[in-house]
């Protein structure tokens, strides 16, 4: 086994996903299969190879720090599931 049900539960918590019991069982099996497949990367010797995070050579993309208009409060809040005045409203954080 590459991954256990306990690990799946731990990862789900990290990912903020409330999985059902069925999903936990399903994903444990499927992730196990996928992780067994990706193990083939261990056949490759990657000593001294520089990792790639960006496929096109680029310098840092800087711009001038200038004041510009933003979309404004009403547009920013237009899709809010819940709001109060000019704020996003969420359930109580501290009991």
């Amino acid at each position, binding site marked *: 086994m590459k*991954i256990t049900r306990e*690990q*799946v539960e731990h*990862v*789900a918590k*990290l*990912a*903020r*996903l*409330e*999985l*059902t019991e069925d*999903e936990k069982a*399903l*994903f444990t099996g*499927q*992730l196990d*299969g*996928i*992780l067994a*497949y*990706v193990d*083939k*990367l*261990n*056949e*490759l010797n*990657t000593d001294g*190879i*520089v*990792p*790639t*995070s*960006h*496929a*096109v050579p*680029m310098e840092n*993309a800087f*711009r001038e720090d200038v004041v510009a208009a933003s*979309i404004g409060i009403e*547009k*920013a809040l*237009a*899709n*809010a*599931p*819940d709001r109060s005045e000019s704020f*996003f409203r*969420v*359930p*109580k*954080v501290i*009991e």
Partner: protein
Amino acid sequence: MELHELTIHELHEKLKNREISSVEATKAFLARIDAVEDQVKSFITVTAAEALKNAEAADKRIAAGDMDVLTGIPLALKDIFLTEGILTTCASRILSGFVPPYDATATARLKARGMVLLGKLNQDEFAMGSSTETSWFGKTRNPWNLDCIPGGSSGGSAAAIAAQQAVATLGTDTGGSIRQPASHCGCVGLKPTYGRVSRYGVIAFASSLDQVGPLTRDVTDSAIMLGAVAGYDPKDSTSVDTPVPDYLQALTGDLKGLRIGLPREYFIEGLDPDVKKAMDEAIATYRALGAEFVEMSLPHTDYAIAVYYLIATAEASSNLARYDGVRFGHRNQDARGLLDMYMVSRDEGFGAEVKRRIMLGTYALSSGYYDAYYLKAQKARTLIMQDFITAFESVDVILTPVAPTPAFRLGEKADDPLQMYLSDIFTIPVNLAGTCGISVPAGLSSDGLPVGLQLIGKHFGEETILRAAHAFEQATEWHKKKANI
């Protein structure tokens, strides 16, 4: 010929010569959508009223002599592109009511040229899939055979063209999501070089791989659409500040001396006989056009899927952290506290494939596994990219199949994620290397399903692959074949 069968350049001629108006063309497409949408289900949202308004504005522009090649042309966009004031869902329940406050740069550029927006197209949820079966809004079907998948993730973008519901569309390609559905639906699909087209306002899946590109009826239209959306955008720091060439100028028809590479890793034993036949015929066509063939190797091909499903899921797990039910998107209203709200809203909002990928990506990035999985995959990605850079020292273009088989049947791979992932073997390496690739119609299977040919170019080699694709198209009739719907 019916209006809804025309290409951009054909329709443009008719608009320019005042044979028809944009309103007439738009009505023809809206009628066509009405007639076939029940069977195909290419769209999540049809914006009929908006389209007619766009068409009226375009007709005014044309009358005033202020006309671009896209002015008045009815187009549609994958539902991953933000459209101000128009529902944009990325085919996910978590965005099922999301109305963007601004346009994607690609949307804005097409609007500025006077496009008519017919609507927003179905896709796999968050572009995660190869079949358009994971959409919260239902499955799109292949117009060539309604029992088959249209490919994915830009399945609606390809099906809408095959079913003649739009002249051209935009899709996105993270691991083949433009090229594979184009191949399965018999249209032309172009994935430009990473950085060629701005992703500002394009809902992110895997940010080091995602790229915007067109799906069209022919290669000329592909060149037109790429020219319209390509170019530097200060709002996307990964967009590259190099001039956009006139891609139409590249379509010279001259292939004398073009060196085409055939990578042996892509022409393996057991390749589907219909796909093999199409490739053999394409090679013969290119020989007759004066191209030279070079046998070559991309030695790390076999590792591409493993690399992709670690890097793409890791980036996705980070990108999709923004869907937390706080600022936009679905929120569970009964949650007992903030943490509970995050967990339940995300569980309800995401479908199984998206959750599976978030889980895999979170695992690959988590403490104790980062080096073994994510970092290892990034190093292997370097080897895959080097394969291409080395190859392009001795060839101009690489010719391969797009997919190992023609379109498979609905449900065939839905329960086996690994089998679904393996169907992207010929397209994924191009995204990992960041180069460009185009899918062109190159045959029909014994069951009458389209088979596509992939031409891969070097970084910013769009002109060369468009030229090679165009010459092939002019020498063959495959792009004129139409789905019987």
